[in-house]
C-alpha cells in the first residue's frame, strides 16, 4: 500500500533498495521490458506508485513518452515529475515524492541532474524516501547519482563527479556502448582520485539492499559487470556474470516465458498499440 497520510518513518538499512543500471530500460530498450518489470517487482506494494524523474535530460518529451508507453497498462500507477514545465503540477514536491513506492531516474547530464535537484531541495527528499524504503532506480546518470562518485560526460569529455553518496564507491556506465568511458574511469581508480567500484554494460543492473550488493541482473545475454579496485597502485578487476532476467532458472517470479509474452501481445493488441517499437 502506498502512503497516503504522513509518510512512515525510516526502515532498517537492509530494507532500503537501490537498483542502478548501466543502461537499458524503457528509454534504451523499448522492445525489452525485462529490467523495467524487475524494477516494479522490487516494490512491496502489489500495485506500486512509480514516479519518473527525467531531470537529467531536461525533461524531454521522448523520454516521458517512452515512460508512459512502458508503464501504462502495467500493474502500477505511473506519473512523471517535470522540473522544467510550468504548471504541470502545483502540488508540493515533497508530497508527490513521499507517496511513491518507486522513484525511477532517467539518463542525461549527471551534473545538471544533481544541481537542479539541489536547487529544488529534491536531493534531501530522495534521501529521505530511500530511508523510508522507497525503491530508488535509474540508469546512466540516474544510476551514478546514488554513489559517492560517477563518471560523467556532462561537460563533454568524461570526468569524475561526486554523487549523493548513498552507496559506497564509484560507478561507470555504458561500458560497452560508450567505450571511451572505461579507460578514463580505470585511470582515476588506479591513481586513487576515484574509489573502486563497478563498471556496467548496457542492460546490466546492480541491486543494493542497504549498502550491500545483493544481486546483479541483466536484460541481455552476454552483458557484463565488473568490480574494480586499486590495490597498492594496481588494478584488480573481477568480472561478474549477471543473472539473465526472463530465464526461468534465474527468475523466481516466473520469468519471461512464452505464455507471458503471449498474454502481453494480447494486452498490446487490446490497447491498439500494435507490435514492437523501434
Amino acid at each position, binding site marked *: 500500500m502506498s502512503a497516503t497520510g504522513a509518510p512512515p518513518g525510516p526502515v532498517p538499512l537492509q530494507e532500503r533498495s537501490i537498483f542502478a543500471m548501466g543502461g537499458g530500460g524503457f528509454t534504451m530498450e523499448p522492445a525489452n521490458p525485462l529490467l523495467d518489470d524487475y524494477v516494479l517487482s522490487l516494490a512491496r506494494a502489489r500495485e506500486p506508485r512509480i514516479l519518473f524523474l527525467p531531470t537529467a535530460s531536461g525533461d524531454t518529451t521522448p523520454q516521458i513518452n517512452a515512460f508512459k508507453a512502458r508503464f501504462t497498462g502495467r500493474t502500477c500507477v505511473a506519473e512523471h515529475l517535470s522540473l522544467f514545465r*510550468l504548471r504541470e503540477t502545483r502540488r508540493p514536491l515533497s508530497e*508527490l515524492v513521499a507517496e511513491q513506492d518507486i522513484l525511477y531516474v532517467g539518463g542525461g547530464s549527471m551534473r545538471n541532474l544533481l544541481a537542479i535537484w539541489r536547487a529544488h531541495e529534491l536531493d534531501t527528499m530522495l534521501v529521505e524516501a530511500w530511508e523510508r524504503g522507497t525503491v530508488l532506480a535509474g540508469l546512466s546518470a540516474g544510476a551514478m547519482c546514488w554513489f559517492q562518485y560517477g563518471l560523467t560526460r556532462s561537460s563533454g569529455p568524461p570526468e569524475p563527479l561526486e554523487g549523493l553518496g548513498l552507496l559506497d564507491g564509484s560507478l561507470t556506465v555504458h561500458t560497452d556502448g560508450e567505450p571511451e568511458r572505461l579507460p578514463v574511469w580505470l585511470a582515476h581508480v588506479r591513481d586513487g582520485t576515484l574509489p573502486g567500484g563497478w563498471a556496467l554494460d548496457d542492460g546490466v543492473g546492480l541491486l543494493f539492499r542497504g549498502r550491500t550488493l545483493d544481486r546483479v541482473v541483466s536484460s541481455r545475454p552476454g552483458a557484463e559487470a565488473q568490480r574494480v579496485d586499486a590495490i597498492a597502485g594496481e588494478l584488480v578487476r573481477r568480472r561478474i556474470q549477471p543473472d539473465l532476467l526472463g530465464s526461468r532458472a534465474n527468475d523466481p517470479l516466473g520469468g519471461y516465458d512464452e505464455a507471458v509474452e503471449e498474454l502481453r501481445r494480447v494486452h498490446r493488441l487490446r490497447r491498439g498499440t500494435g507490435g514492437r517499437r523501434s
Partner: protein
Amino acid sequence: MPARAPQIVALGGGGFSMEKEGSLLDDYILSLLDAERPRVCFLPTASGDADHYVVRFYRRFSPGCEASHVSLFRRDQGTGGVEDDLAAHLLSQDLIYVGGGNMVSMLGAWRAHGLDSILRKAWRKGIVMCGPSAGSLCWFTQALSAFHGAPRPVRGLSILPYSNCVHYDAEPARREEYHRAVADGMSAGFAVEDGVGLHFRGTRLERVVSSRPEGRAFMVQSQGSRVLETPLETHYLGETLKTPRTIALAEPVAA
C-alpha cells in the same frame, strides 16, 4: 573607447517565443546593439534546452544576426550548440537572450556550469541581456515563483536590486500573491504584463516598452502596512519604435 553601460531588458512575457507578431520587443532589443550584424546567443536552459525553442530562436535571429545557442544538457552530443569555452563565447556576444521556463532549475544548472558568474561578467562588460519570464526573473534579487505549490519568493542572480513578477495579467491570483509577498517582506519591485519589457541601464529603470497598446507594468512597494502599486508610463512600440525617445520616469525605485 568608453565602456558600454550595462543593460537588461526584462520581459514580462513576449518576444519571439510567445508572440506570433512578437517582433516588436525583439526589434527594440536589437535596436540597442551597435553592431551591424550582432552576435546573439540564446540560453534555453529554463526550458530544459527544448528543441522547438532553439529552432524558433534561429528562425527569428539567424537572418540578421550571428546566432548561436548554448545547451547545458547535450554538451557531449555535438548538437550544434557551443561546446568548448562557454566563457569566451558568451563574453564575445552583443546580446544574450535567456529563454523562459523554470527559473529555479535554470539557476541550478547555470551554477553547475559556472554560467552565473560568466553572465555577471558579461553584464558588466556591456553585453545586453534580455529574456521573457524566467529570462526576466533571473536578473532580480527575488522573484515570485508559482511552481510546485504555493507561490513563494525565490532568489535570482541579484544583479537588479528589486523583486520581479511576470505574466502579471495572465493569472487572476498573481496580483494578490505578489502584493502579499511584498507585504511579507519581499523587496519592492516590478510587476510586468505579457508583451511588456523593462529596460534597465545599470540598475536604473530607463524605459518601459510594450508590443501591445494596452500593455502595463507597475512598481509595487510596501509603505507601512500597505502595499502601493504605481502604474509606470509605458511606450507602445508600434508607434514609437521608429523614433525612440528617452522619457524619464517620475521616481526611480530605491534599492
